[in-house]
């Protein structure tokens, strides 16, 4: 025994060297009545069902699926980035299918106009008046494929709808149907024919998720499925799991998650550090802090807890911050990535305990 403490009867820091066998046995089996104060059964069941539905087609990518589920619960938009052919669009399409809500897809091209996305007013000669014809953005789950193929003019059209969930045309504001979620895919900006998204646009995405190449084992599984002709059949067999009302109910549950005040400070310090870090030219905005908080609350619920822990915050920090920060030219030339800087920042801030 190495403890310096004495008086084992009263001192709970003393390491007991000779506890009676029966008492020791009971301590090993001791479990307190700690448990979640919120009933997450419906949420857990829905999450499991969505994972199963996606797992029919998508091989691996467990982190991607978890982050997508988190985004649904946190009422956020997701940007999926990856090289061509890593199932970005397929994943987004499948996720939309698991929700029983209106879905639309917009293929972004260099000649796309804002009115092609938002809608336009057309003249009705029989009524002698203009009538607003809603664009494809008017859906609950909107898949914007290859978002960085459109120039900044078209990107700007998404600012209002992504942040405020409504569209203003000719002085009239049209509110979106809830849930409203944008799932956008993009190729890395180094690819031919792409534009860098404006910072204001990037800030409106809750997460930016990198989709990497599958492992060899996963790729073999993909090939086996394709060879057996299961792909297209499975795609049509994907079932809707959640309705719009259920999503709203689950989001309300997530909003009521408990967050210890020190954790709020922890989030603020992480985001604040991005603004002072010498490797960063542009730090994250307060919207990033809100995103990190909302995301952490949703992730905690997915993990069956009614409170947030530092693990939740640390786990989500790269996905929340990587698209909201800009590296200095020197760091970019050295090949440093935003994820590396976020990791360094996390290492510099003490976990509240």
């Amino acid at each position, binding site marked *: 025994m190495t403890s310096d403490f004495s008086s084992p009867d009263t001192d709970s820091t003393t390491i007991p060297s000779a506890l009676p066998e029966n008492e020791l046995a009971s*301590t090993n089996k001791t479990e307190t009545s700690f448990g979640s104060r919120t009933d997450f059964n419906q949420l857990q069941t829905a999450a499991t069902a969505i994972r199963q539905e996606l797992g029919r087609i998508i091989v691996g990518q467990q982190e991607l699926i978890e982050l997508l589920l988190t985004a649904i619960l946190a009422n956020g938009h997701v940007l999926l980035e990856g090289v061509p052919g890593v199932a970005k669009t397929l994943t987004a399409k499948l996720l939309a299918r698991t929700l029983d809500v209106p879905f639309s897809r917009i293929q972004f091209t260099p000649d796309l106009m804002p009115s092609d996305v938002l809608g336009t007013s057309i003249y009705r000669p029989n009524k002698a008046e203009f009538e607003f014809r809603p664009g494809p953005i008017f859906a609950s789950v909107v898949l914007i494929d290859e978002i960085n193929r459109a120039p900044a003019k078209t990107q700007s059209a998404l600012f209002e709808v992504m942040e405020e969930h409504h569209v203003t045309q000719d002085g009239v504001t049209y509110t979106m149907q809830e849930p409203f979620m944008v799932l956008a895919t993009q190729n890395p900006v180094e690819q031919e024919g792409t534009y860098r998204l404006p910072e204001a646009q990037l800030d409106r995405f809750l997460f930016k998720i990198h989709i990497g190449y599958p492992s060899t084992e996963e790729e073999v599984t993909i090939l086996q499925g394709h060879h057996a002709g299961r792909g297209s059949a499975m795609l049509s067999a994907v079932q809707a799991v959640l309705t719009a009302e259920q999503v709203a109910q689950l989001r309300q549950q997530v909003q009521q998650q408990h967050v210890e005040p020190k954790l709020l400070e922890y989030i603020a310090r992480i985001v604040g550090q991005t603004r002072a870090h010498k490797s960063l030219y542009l730090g994250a905005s307060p919207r990033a802090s809100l995103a990190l908080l909302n995301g952490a609350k949703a992730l905690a619920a997915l993990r069956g807890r009614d409170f947030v822990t530092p693990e939740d915050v640390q786990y989500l920090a790269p996905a929340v911050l990587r698209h909201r920060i800009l590296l200095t030219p020197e760091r970019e030339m050295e090949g440093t990535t935003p994820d590396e800087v976020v990791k360094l920042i996390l290492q*510099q801030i003490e976990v509240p*305990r």
Partner: protein
Amino acid sequence: MLYQSAIPGLTNRRSAKGLCLLCLLWLLAGGFPLASGKAPTPAPIYSLPADQSAVILRKPRAARLREFRRQRAFQYIQIKSEQNAWDRFWQRLANWLQELLRTPVGRITWKYGVYAFMVAALVFAVLKLLQVDVTKAFGRAPKRAALAYDTTTENIHALDFTALLTEAEAKGNYRLAVRLGYLFVLKQLTDRSLIQWQPDKTNHDYLTELTTTQLRAGFQELTRQFEYAWYGEQPLTAEQYALVRTARLGFLHQLTSNRAA
């Protein structure tokens, strides 16, 4: 007929040219005045009286001139300030270098020194671009930047757990007691080198570090209790705390037994 002339009889090209020439001569000769026969009237010459008024010479005021002279903008001659000791040092150094470079050895050294500097700059640029860490070549381990930890945070190695826990338990602050107990467990694990204490690590990082299976299960349960009580702020009764305390003591006993084994 090619031209239809206004004057009858002039019907060919030569006649038209002659008419044009006549018109031109008439215009050059004065045109209408000549035609009217009047000479131009000369303009009358008026003579103005000479200025007889007395000229008063105005001189600028002496005070005003002195003021101008004092102004920096009117001082066209730069007055050299006297050299101080530091300037004299640099002057002497420059003179010495000039003298040195005038010698044959100095000239050769200067010539090849410039080449050597250029080569070194080129090598440095290439190494920087390739991100090669040359410090390893000299056997020196790369320095890790010191982490900017908040100095206001608690150091688990400096806390008097006995006093703090006794106080928290006596006051019925079971939430704080759970926290202190958990920190004490972390300290014990660190002291036995079972985990590496770092302020940025989470509880689950420590759980991953624990390779001993028996300890892992117990620590997992303690972590769960701590998280629900501390992060979840779940209210604790004396009975519930007693269970947490027993679990902690059991784990510490297991830790000692494990060490002894």
